[in-house]
């Protein structure tokens, strides 16, 4: 295989000319490699963006928790004080503070609008907790709260965080699966194109065998052609897709996922791996197809 790669890289103009130019299969290979590389860049971008999203959601929600206190208005301040007292003596809690009415209004504003009369509504009070490292014992804290402040409910965001992180992680896996499928489809298409070229050139192959050509020589002539076509097509597809990704709107706070579907930093180098990968797929697919065809000839 190493020798086959070396031979592939060393140009042999005479050997290249032995196989007649075949317009249809050449265009098919170029187009397939280009289109698949284009799709692969977006799948890669999706996968990377999903990975970043999963990390962001996990880190944003991890380490924080909220205590929701529901109590009659006249007992609310007492309950808040009790809870803050409990929290101040709970190991693993870095800080805890009660959110004021303005902060709660800001949280509700996206859902109910700016004119919400917060003061007139029996809203629960929220206490924001920042976790220390190592964290607190959630079960123990719940038991203490139940005993000392029955209206307080600890929400450690697990029920939000887990499905969101899972969704983002699955999106990332789907992106990777798409890359694998694209690689497989590229291999299949190039195998079909190679088979077509081999079938169209059976007479050429027979002549080459007749004059003493070894299988490796014949295979190399086809493999080199298809590998270089796949490399060229995938390079064009990758560059076009990278331009497309670069032109996407920049990430912002409001639409971080859809607008964050680009590459960041060294991530821009990853798509550059796609053309050589396409060439490797074409190399393997054509080599397999060529040796299989030659097996049927003497």
């Amino acid at each position, binding site marked *: 295989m190493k020798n086959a790669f070396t031979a592939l890289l060393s140009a042999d103009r005479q050997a290249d000319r032995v196989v007649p130019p075949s317009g249809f299969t050449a265009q098919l290979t170029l187009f397939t490699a280009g289109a698949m590389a284009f799709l692969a860049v977006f799948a890669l971008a999706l996968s990377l963006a999903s990975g970043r999203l999963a990390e962001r959601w996990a880190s944003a929600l991890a380490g924080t928790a909220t205590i929701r206190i529901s109590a009659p208005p006249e007992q609310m301040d007492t309950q808040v004080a009790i809870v803050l007292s409990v929290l101040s003596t709970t190991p693993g809690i870095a800080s805890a503070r009660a959110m004021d009415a303005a902060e709660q209004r800001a949280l509700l504003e996206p859902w109910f609008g700016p004119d919400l009369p917060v003061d007139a509504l029996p809203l629960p009070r929220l206490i924001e907790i920042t976790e220390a490292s190592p964290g607190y014992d959630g079960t123990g804290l719940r038991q203490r709260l139940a005993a000392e402040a029955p209206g307080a409910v600890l929400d450690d965001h697990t029920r939000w965080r887990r499905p969101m992180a899972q969704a983002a992680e699955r999106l990332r896996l789907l992106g990777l699966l798409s890359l694998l499928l694209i690689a497989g489809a590229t291999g299949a298409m190039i195998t079909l194109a190679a088979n077509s070229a081999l079938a169209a050139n059976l*007479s050429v192959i027979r002549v080459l*065998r007749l*004059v*003493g*050509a070894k299988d490796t020589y014949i295979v190399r002539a086809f493999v080199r052609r298809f590998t270089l076509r796949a490399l060229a097509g995938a390079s064009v597809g990758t560059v076009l897709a990278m331009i497309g990704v670069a032109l996407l709107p920049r990430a912002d706070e409001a639409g971080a996922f859809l607008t964050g579907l680009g590459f960041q930093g060294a991530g821009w180098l990853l798509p550059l791996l796609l053309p050589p990968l396409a060439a490797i797929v074409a190399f393997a697919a054509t080599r397999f197809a060529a040796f299989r065809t*030659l097996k049927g000839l003497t």
Partner: protein
Amino acid sequence: MILFENVGYNYGGGELLSDVALRLAPGSFHFLTGPSGAGKTTFLKLAYAELRPTAGQVTLFGRDARRLTRDDVALTRRRIGVVHQDCQFLDHLPLATNVTLPLTVCGKPGNAQDLTSLLDWVGLGKLADALPPSLSGGERQRAALARAVIMDPDVILADEPTGNLDWEMSLRLLTLLVELNRMGKTILVATHDMNLIRQAKSQLAARVLRIANRRVQLAGADL
């Protein structure tokens, strides 16, 4: 050089050759005759390992043909020049490139002067750049012969090389084959052209073999 020992060949639809015994000695000249379908082409294919015998043993340059790997077959064919009736060229390449194809496939550099001499010898010196489809039948046969000898093979096998040629062109090709034999090459020509055989026998001591009843026999003196 090429040895057939009790060789049989079965296509699956019946036995085509049976109990064939023959030794092609170095420097010999043989004709192989027989009616169409008698097995002349099959015999030649066995002699350059395109086919493997279904019975007996074919020995090519001291090696059992059945034990040759695909690479061994390729190497063996570099020592056997084959001329087909339909010549079998790469039509998209010029004549000179077709003639040097055996050198190209084994990575040997071609010598332009040698090529010119070879093409002049077969009378195609001015057609080096012509594409095969533009050549006449005689020109194609002589080009095929040039391709067959460019590797300086030990043996030259020709399958009905004059089948599509007029008498004058056939004689020209025969002259080239006789010259090659005088240079020490082993020649085997499958043909049903009795006039060609008689003409050859007038110039050298050629043995004539005939395939009849699935066996290869030495033909009578009337030839």
